[in-house]
């Protein structure tokens, strides 16, 4: 009923289906951009999909037995194996379809995990899935820490963020003292047909990329920055703003690697200073000028490297190993 009401209020947006595949009433925190990212991913794919999900916030907020928020076939097995479970679903459906035991229709298999479930504990399973060439999409919803267990650092936590296991202290004033693992580049290095970054603050870009990922033959990877007000210590109403600032400052550039060709999806004329992004985030409040300068320097260097990659690969696509 609530849904009906919503339909009347919302003006249709182009390519933004009104159908919901994750029901409201889930238990995510206010302003959670991770669940928003999930919602957009599902909308872009539509009902003909199967979702394999890692343990983490998105699983916990959606599935206290006997309840479920999922309006698509959904499976959760464990923390580190969404890519492998998804591989199994893909292999199973493929064999059954070939043998005529299930209807002959395309089903998009999606595996999804948090940054911890992807860049740390699920890294090996993900690499295996890429290398074997399963036709499926892996989505990393990156809120830059293990949020479900109480904001512990991951290898995707940015330099300078204070988390419960990388707290800023006298002996280690920066908090996290390592740089964010570049998962998208690592995915692209597997020579899969498609890898991209996205952010729900730019939802039409996100949804276009999901559709592209579903279309290519072989594995696709989407790395979605997902603001977590609880873990980042920002007000819930600012998640969209902070997502946009991450993109516009170059902290989290939006780009895609389509068959080896690197393409920027958003190229701001001038990058906003990182201070605009860092300001107001509780996890960065301890940073001094020196540390901020270090971050700024790194962002610029990464940005320039990215521009070069785009330029270098722009007109001569590399061979994709996994496409067959």
């Amino acid at each position, binding site marked *: 009923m609530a849904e009906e009401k919503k339909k009347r209020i919302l003006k249709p947006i182009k390519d933004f289906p009104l159908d919901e595949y994750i029901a409201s009433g889930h238990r995510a925190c206010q302003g959670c951009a991770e669940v928003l990212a999930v919602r957009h991913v599902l909308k872009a794919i539509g009902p003909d999909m199967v979702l394999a999900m890692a343990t983490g916030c998105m699983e916990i907020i959606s*599935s*206290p037995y006997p309840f479920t928020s999922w309006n*698509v076939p959904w499976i959760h*097995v464990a923390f580190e194996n969404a890519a*492998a479970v998804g*591989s199994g679903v893909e292999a199973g459906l493929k*064999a059954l379809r070939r043998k005529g035991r299930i209807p002959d229709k395309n089903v998009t298999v999606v595996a999804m995990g948090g940054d911890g479930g992807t860049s740390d504990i699920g890294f090996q399973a993900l690499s295996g899935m890429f290398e*074997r060439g399963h036709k499926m999409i892996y989505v990393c919803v990156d809120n830059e820490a293990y949020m479900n267990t109480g904001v512990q650092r991951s290898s995707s936590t940015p330099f300078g963020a204070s988390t419960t296991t990388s707290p800023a202290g006298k002996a280690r004033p920066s908090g996290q003292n390592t740089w964010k693992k570049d998962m998208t580049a690592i995915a692209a290095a597997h020579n899969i047909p498609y890898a991209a970054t996205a952010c729900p603050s730019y939802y039409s870009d996100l949804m276009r990329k999901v559709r592209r990922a579903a279309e290519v033959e072989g594995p696709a990877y989407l790395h979605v920055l997902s603001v977590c007000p609880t873990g980042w210590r920002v007000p819930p109403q600012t998640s969209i703003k902070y997502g946009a600032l991450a993109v516009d400052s170059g902290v989290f550039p939006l780009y895609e690697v389509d068959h080896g060709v690197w393409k920027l999806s958003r190229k701001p004329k001038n990058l906003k200073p990182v201070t605009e992004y860092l300001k107001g985030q509780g996890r960065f409040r301890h940073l001094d000028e020196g540390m901020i300068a270090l971050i700024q320097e790194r962002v610029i260097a990464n940005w320039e490297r990215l521009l070069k990659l785009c330029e270098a690969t722009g007109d001569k696509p590399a061979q994709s190993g996994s496409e067959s």
Partner: protein
Amino acid sequence: MGKKVGMEVSIAAAEAAALCDVDVVAAYPITPQTHIVEHLSELVANGHLDAEFVPVESEHSAMSVCCGSAAAGARTITSTAAQGLALMAEIVFIASAMRLPMVMLVANRALSAPLSIWNDHSDAMMVRDCGWIQVFCENGQDVYDHVFHGFRVGEDPRVLLPVMINLDGFILTHVIEPMEFWTKEMAKSYLPPFKPVYRLHPDKVVSMGAFGMPEIYAEQKMAHDVALRNSRPVIDEAWDELARLTGRRYSAVEHYKTDGAETLILAMGSLCETASLAVDQMRDGGKKVGLVKLRLWRPFPFAEIRQALAGAKDVVVLDRSVSTGGGSAPVTSEIRAVMYHEPSRPKIHCMIAGLGGRDVTPDDVSNMVDMALAGTGAEYYIYGVRG
């Protein structure tokens, strides 16, 4: 009855899986399981088996792929041993609790350290409580037949549980044995196509693997336990049908020369064949000794074990793993617990032997019986250790 042909047991097991027309194979190589998966991949490569062979990067992923594929409703098989089973253990427990049928051949091997590729049952005992149907095979024919049996039981809508078939590493996996093979028609008539109650497919939306709050977790555990116990009649029914089809009769507990026996040996797996030779010797020597073979480890056959052991004065359990620092070895513990409330109960001796591939001969078995009856003065005794 068909003609017997010699074949390596691992190859035969893979051939059985092919006759079962499995849809997905996911496995990672580990000695002594390798020949099974190598042959399965060969069958797929040659087009003899129409299946997806998923060459995973670890056993953890092997079991995870199996969960995904079984959840999609595909007939699924894997195989591993020791360290591989340890690595996948997390997901082994989940597969059964999520009621995902599949067959896993465990080529039993000792757990590290020290690293050993040789046979014992420490791997299987590590996952004793994983909630799978678990059988231990005595010989190659037994392994071959149980692949069909495993799929039939596990996929039965009254059961929906994964099935673990234990076969002793090297002692069974690498030997050539004379076996009777099934025909395609036999396999077809015995094993109906897998029709899952739920499958991951957009035509009927389901959620699988929701988490359990304290107010529901215990109920879910109980439901799993009830399901495993209730699989027993289906297991027996499938053995009956197998007997009709092949003339070979299997049961949860089997007897060898137990009539009038005062002392019973209890063993599992290939050691049963060795123990039966020892029983022959001891009987020839006038000793009243018999053998009880425990084939079905889970669900545990309480009634048959109580009945089998009731009349004996002594039971010597041959365990193949150590419960380090524990009360006794895993099989003995179980047997002692099961017999505890019986009005007349035998003395139950625990003899641990054959660890990490140490050979156990019929003479060793006779020796262990003698030692046990003479009294070792301990809760359990590790036989044949040089000191």
